[in-house]
């Protein structure tokens, strides 16, 4: 069967790939594009380890067909850092030891990034609800939640500093 040609941006770069009509986006990211950050934990939308952001929306890439990405902007964990500078979430996860085996981490980072985009100053409860679609078998969640709150703090401080510098 002829394969589907898809053009989209992935982490800001124009990208094209060939996929099968029934292939999931998760599968295409990993097998066609070599982006193995997103993981397949369940393949049914329950665990969130495949989370990516498509056109600004957090989604389970295991429940998206790869051809649906035509024309879309896809952001994966590989696009979170700016060059060598880690994203504040990545930095705070390292400092807060918010991962053990790391299988859930790419998905949790994307869910947390989507949450902080929408709500830069979340309460602990809001973080817990925001991450309800992501399962972690190792950490017990507490360090993850603390690290997201710490990243939110540091992001706000940085953006306040930038605002002050701009007005100064």
């Amino acid at each position: 069967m002829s394969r589907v040609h898809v053009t989209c941006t992935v982490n800001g770069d124009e990208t094209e790939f060939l996929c099968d009509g029934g292939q999931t986006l998760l599968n295409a990211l990993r097998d066609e594009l070599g982006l193995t950050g997103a993981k397949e934990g369940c393949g049914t939308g329950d665990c969130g380890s495949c989370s990516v952001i498509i056109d600004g929306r957090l989604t389970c890439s295991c429940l998206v067909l790869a051809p649906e990405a035509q024309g879309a902007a896809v952001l994966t964990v590989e696009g979170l850092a700016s060059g060598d500078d880690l994203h504040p979430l990545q930095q705070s996860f390292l400092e807060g030891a918010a991962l053990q085996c790391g299988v859930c981490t790419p998905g949790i980072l994307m869910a947390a990034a989507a949450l902080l985009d929408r709500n830069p100053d979340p309460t602990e409860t809001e973080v817990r609800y925001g991450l309800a679609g992501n399962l972690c078998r190792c950490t017990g969640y507490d360090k993850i939640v603390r690290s997201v709150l710490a990243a939110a703090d540091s992001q706000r401080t940085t953006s306040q500093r930038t605002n002050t510098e701009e007005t100064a």
Partner: protein
Amino acid sequence: MLAPMKYAAPATVEEARALLAADGGARVFAGATDLIPQIRAGRPEPSMMIDLKRIDRLSGIARAGSTWTIGAATPTADIVAHAGFAAEFPGLAEASGLIGSDQIQNRCTWGGNLVNASPAADTPPALIVNDAKAVIASAGGERTVAAAEVATGPGATCLGADEIIVEFTLASPPPRTADAYLRLIPRTEMDIAVVGAAARVTLAPDGAVTAAAVALGAVAPTVVRVPDAEAALIGGPLTDDALEAVAQAASAACRPIDDKRGTVAYRRRVAGVLARRAVAIAADRAAADQRGASS
């Protein structure tokens, strides 16, 4: 992998219907949050997946006069976030915001929730108490069906093989009217209803109930309306006796099953409790509703 399937993203309802009509193995989808897990669990693979999200008319939330029109493929996250809609239909927004996680709500739709026809689906009871209508594209044109008529049994609907739900319409509620939706699950998020209860109440300026609707999910093969609860409410103020009658009528209306989420007796009991609470919340909201307060 779901490899052999073809993928199509038609731009119009007619193209989508033509694809469905030409290929008996083709299936339409919006969020695919039911369809892909079902295929992975061993249901027959469609020969073609027809993506409804590129059809303009199927996405979006609009109000014209007193009629709201919601595209059948609109993700429920957009419905929850629509302040104007959520102000008029707080209970329907609540039900829409309970489905799965943020990841799921960014994809899942009323159309999929209704057509998947799970007895435990969250939005159908709330659509039904608000008398939502589904506009269905058929071979002969379009037909309009009450949301209550769409599901006919677990996994079964009134839709013909080549029919598609295009949009939902809802009349703006009259003044001093509000809805509410409650569900019980064993966890706080990411589980399927043991019982779901939707209520809608209209109050007269003196506080008497002038209209009421109560509907239950997960307690029968399809959503159950509770006319006895509605009759117990209409005509009087919202007394404790009236609320107790609602609870009893709701428990009596259930035809639940035993499963891992709850026994028959537990579901009956919980249905009464949730129905009573949903009515009380809807009535509080209706009393606080300022629209038309001076008229």
